[in-house]
């Protein structure tokens, strides 16, 4: 815990200095018609609107987490199939690449038409699609980049394909899987909020931001952005925590993120 704190210290100092510059800069320069509120104004708005923002964060958080779980599972299963069966590789890999080539956010209005404008399902679908690809591509890389010596060894033990997958490929894929999980958790937050701009629940972060920005209440919009960022950071830290538990053999390289 102490090490985490020491590791985070430079980031905390840097962040604090940035906030002070932001606050003082706007306070002293008083730019006219500038729509960037000061940090203290944002915090004030956050406190004033806490119940509404909290509810919205919980609702968006539900989309993020469910979409993340489904998308990550889909990516992992897909990459296991592709790395294990040639036929799956020849069919599912191009399909994954094709899916990724779609500008996924552009599907949001279409999904709303499918699932109903106020249904959160369309937002979850966007998150699943966004999250799936980085998980798939990284995990597949990890599953297939096993050294020739390691494979020769396993064959010399007369290991079956499944034993090689279980004992070599999956542990070998862990580091890259966690890289993708961190990317995916940030993407999930972005995807959920942007998808909410187009529809879904009215009491969610995306709608809160859109509605407040539309009536020029930018400070409120910013307060909701802060809530979204906090969610992203928490998910990132959680991924890092799980990574440490699951891959204890790895050196502590990313101390800053705890």
């Amino acid at each position, binding site marked *: 815990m102490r090490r985490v704190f020491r590791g985070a210290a430079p980031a905390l100092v840097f962040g604090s200095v940035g906030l002070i510059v932001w606050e003082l800069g706007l306070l002293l320069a008083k730019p006219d018609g500038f729509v960037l509120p000061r940090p203290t104004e944002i915090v004030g708005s956050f406190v004033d609107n806490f119940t509404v923002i909290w509810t919205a964060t919980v609702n968006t958080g539900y989309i993020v987490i469910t979409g993340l779980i489904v998308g990550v599972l889909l990516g992992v299963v897909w990459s296991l199939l592709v790395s294990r069966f040639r036929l799956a590789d020849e069919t599912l890999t191009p399909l994954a690449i094709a899916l990724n080539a779609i500008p996924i956010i552009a599907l949001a209005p279409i999904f709303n038409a499918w699932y109903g404008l106020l249904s959160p399902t369309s937002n979850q679908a966007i998150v699943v699609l966004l999250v799936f690809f980085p998980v798939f591509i990284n995990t597949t890389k990890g599953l297939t980049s096993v050294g020739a010596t390691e494979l020769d060894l396993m064959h010399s033990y007369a290991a079956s394909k499944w034993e090689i997958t279980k004992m070599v490929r999956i542990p070998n894929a862990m580091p890259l899987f966690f890289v993708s999980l961190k990317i995916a958790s940030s993407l999930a937050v972005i995807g959920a909020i942007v998808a909410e701009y187009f529809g879904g629940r009215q009491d969610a972060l995306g709608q809160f931001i859109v509605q407040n920005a539309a009536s020029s209440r930018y400070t409120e919009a910013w307060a909701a952005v802060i809530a979204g960022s906090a969610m992203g950071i928490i998910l990132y830290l959680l991924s890092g925590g799980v990574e440490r538990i699951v*891959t204890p053999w790895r050196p502590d390289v990313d101390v800053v993120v705890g």
Partner: protein
Amino acid sequence: MTGSDTGSKVAVSIESVSKVFNRGKPNEVRALDDINLDISEGSFVSLIGPSGCGKSTLLRLMAALTHPTGGSVTVNGKSADKARLDRDYGMAFQTSGLFEWRTVTQNIELPLQLMGWEKADRKARADEMLELVKLAEFATHYPRELSGGMQQRVAIARALAFRPSLLLMDEPFGALDEMTREHMQTEVLDIWARTGKTVVFVTHSIPEAVFLSQRVIVMSPRPGRITADIEVPLGVRGFETRESNRFFEKVTEVREALRFDKGGR
């Protein structure tokens, strides 16, 4: 002891073996051509030759990790494939091939786990092997915490853990510094003396081949062939061996055999 191989049982028998990679394609390589070689049980044999002469390919053929284009490979009286499925041999390579996510003990236990050993038996055997390679105090370390030489010792312990009758090693000390290397050579001979395994050892170091083996097989490239088969009757090796005249004579003999190949190319 050293010297004549006749009379004892044959561990590996290679008859008229050839190996062509990418046959019929523009990048066709005749890696091995008409190889005949018998290795008797309990002997220590080295394969030596310049890079690309097919040493690794020959070793992989014995291990049934690849198959000959022509001829046959027999291990312990059965096909190489059968011997592989029976787990008749352990292997060690230039890179240790230790799994970074497993501790030293867990790495040694891996083949035992595949063979369905009970947990307690695995643990006992891993401890025993760690004693053998003098790494008992590193049992719970991860590979990245070990030096290159220590990693190779773990790899050898792992190769021997399931009591294979044969040990196949492909330049296992190639990446080590000279001092560690000599130390490891002594240890391998010690293990060989204590376990009585048949050892096939690939190297491109002449002193290493002469110091370790009872028999040095000299190979030449394009296509890979056996060009000399040199007995090394130096008896039990010790510290003095490396400085003895008979050692130098054998080193010279192997060097000449290798040089002759170059001239003949």
